[in-house]
């Protein structure tokens, strides 16, 4: 059996062999890349659309409403209808805007989030690239999105957009630190930056349990910082609608706006996926060392269900923040980062290193 929902290694290996045996290595690589690209493009759109739907349903749940319920069963096709509407909308070109940068910006934002997906392990053997510096790569690539946001804000020739973009710049540059340091804390525990190794290391218990105090602190900081980095929830200052109408994407319409919108949701998905991978064991089922029967029962659930399950739980958490909390002010946002999260984080790295040195983790 080549196709196995518990282990995709043989399946991907089979495709790889098939291509290389029939084509020259160059063309095999090209075909492989195109295939992966197409699959990701499809997955990207589907997950993005589903997340928009989910957000509206979660939001409705928080607000005593029903949410979308007219188009299709349970309103499932509402986001598709919205997408069609956005595709058909006019792209308004702004006078005195920097045309080139204005048009490039949405692509930069969406490419940055696209690049991140490459490193995420969806199930055993199901990832595009298994870097040995996976964590580092994701951190580096994800921070490229802010360039797109800054360009969007600047080229729109709109003061609201500019304020939104500058806020976003300050915010992402600051919170990048906390995201990085909290991931480093876990890298110290795992001893590797490779996602596959990190996930394998959690086969006898997730890192959030293994590293106990230090891991929990790192997880909380990661959740806060990554919510800030995706410009969501109580940290949505870059598009604070009650202050800046729509922030950096005020002047965008139609599909260009949809790109920003989609990128925001995909960033949320990526961040949740990384949190799930690094802290909650990724596709690794819940294992408790010593309990064989329980572990086997857990193994029965396919890994990709574990992965998506964990990711969506974290996404639900992030949506919960967003629909409950009021928005922070820019100075409070920076105070939170530089005065609280960063020092705590630095100490936490030390504690984790100490725990690992002394072997006081599970």
């Amino acid at each position: 059996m080549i196709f196995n929902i518990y282990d995709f290694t043989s399946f991907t290996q089979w495709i790889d062999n098939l291509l290389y045996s029939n084509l020259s290595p160059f063309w095999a690589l090209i075909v492989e890349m195109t295939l992966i690209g197409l699959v990701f493009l499809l997955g990207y759109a589907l997950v993005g659309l589903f997340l928009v739907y989910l957000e509206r349903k979660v939001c409705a749940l928080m607000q005593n409403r029903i949410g979308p319920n007219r188009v299709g069963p349970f309103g499932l096709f509402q986001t598709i209808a919205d997408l069609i509407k956005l595709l058909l909308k006019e792209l308004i070109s702004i006078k005195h805007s920097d045309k080139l940068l204005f048009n490039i910006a949405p692509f930069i934002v969406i490419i940055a989030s696209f690049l991140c997906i490459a490193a995420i392990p969806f199930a055993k053997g199901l990832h595009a690239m298994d870097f040995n510096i996976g964590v580092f790569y994701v951190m580096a690539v994800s921070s490229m999105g802010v360039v797109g946001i800054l360009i969007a804000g600047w080229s729109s020739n709109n003061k609201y957009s500019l304020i939104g973009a500058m806020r976003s710049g300050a915010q992402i540059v600051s919170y990048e630190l906390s995201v990085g340091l909290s991931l480093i804390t876990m890298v110290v525990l795992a001893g590797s930056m490779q996602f596959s190794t990190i996930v394998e290391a959690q086969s006898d218990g997730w890192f959030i349990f293994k590293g106990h105090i230090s891991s929990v602190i790192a997880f909380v900081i990661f959740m806060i910082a990554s919510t800030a980095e995706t410009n969501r929830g109580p940290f949505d200052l870059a598009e604070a609608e009650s202050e800046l109408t729509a922030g950096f994407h005020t002047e965008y319409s139609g599909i260009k706006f949809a790109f920003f919108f989609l990128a925001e949701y995909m960033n949320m998905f990526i961040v949740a996926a990384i949190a799930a991978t690094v802290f909650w064991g990724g596709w690794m089922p819940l294992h408790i060392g010593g309990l064989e029967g329980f572990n086997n029962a857990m193994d029965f659930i396919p890994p990709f269900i574990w992965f998506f399950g964990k990711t969506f739980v974290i996404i639900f958490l992030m949506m919960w923040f967003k629909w409950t909390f009021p928005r922070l002010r820019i100075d409070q946002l920076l105070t939170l980062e530089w005065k609280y999260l960063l020092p705590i984080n630095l100490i936490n790295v030390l504690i984790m290193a100490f725990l690992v040195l002394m072997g006081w983790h599970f």
Partner: protein
Amino acid sequence: MVEEIQKTIDTEEEYTINMGPQHPSTHGVLRFVVSLKGELVKNVQPHCGYIHRGIEKMCEKITYPQIIHLTDRMDYLSAHINNAAVCLTVENALEIEMPERVKYIRTIIEELSRIASHQLWWCAFGMDLGGLTCFFYGLRDREKILDIFEESTGGRLIQSYNCPGGLMNDIHPNFQQKVKDFIKYFRKVLPEYDQLLTGNVIFQERAKKVGYISKEEAINFGLTGPSGRGSGFACDVRKRAPYHMYGKVDFKEVLYTEGDTLARYKVRIDEMWESMKIIEQLIDNIPAGDYAVKMKPIIKLPEGEYFQRVESARGEFDVFIISDGNKNPYRIKFRSPNLVNLTAINAMSKDHKIADLVAISGSLDLVIPCMDR
């Protein structure tokens, strides 16, 4: 010299943005021209008049019973109170004593509309600070009051229920029971408002020490209503110049002395409790009798000047009528609490962040049609 250079640098660094007339947080068609230095607000210049309809001029051409249909289009969130102000002015000028029943019903309806107004303010204030869920909690409860209004008055937003000489028609038989049900329900859900917003750390940080205004300043600026009482200015007309039943019911004038956005917020939350207290004292004892006094078909005020103060949900609402003995007023002036409260916004928001300006203008609870008239 140094100061001069500093000044030019300052002005060069400043830039202006237009907030409004179409902006999500100006609650209507108000326009602020804001001078900013980075994110710091240096100067706020409000521009009014986008919904100026010349109500005062229109009133000079119409009769007194017709005026009430214009006043509830000014401050549409406390429409009953505006109407009552006009009615009281006319009734006092003609020296007509209202039956007890009318006074009771007017007081109850006014307190209900005060609660409804504060609920909507709470929704909008939460939204201004980015807490979008607040909006639905507030509107859920406001709907119940609007249902009560609809049953008795026939209108939900704009009711025109008061008229010179009493009420347009009697209350619906279900009125008392529905009001009692609502009070019982609202006593249970009002703590939810605190759970959702008041106790939130982010909210407290956003509201505390933002938009401070001292008591002396508040009096000088004429800040009335919850905005003034948040600074400790005892300006509740219901206490200072009682009308309707307010002289006879027991309620507390809510006063906070902090003078910041949080204090203004707390005043409104506490006022909802006080309003419920007032309604509870009256709802069971509405006396039987006429719901209106027989008035002359054409009401003519004797020559003179008549002034009436009432406490609307946003502050002191005054009606000043100068009559020359005709069926329509020679000059009618409405003192809009919103317009006067707006005067203070520049002083309050100086050197605050742009996000605070939104919070401050939200805490003043501005209703633009009342401001522009």
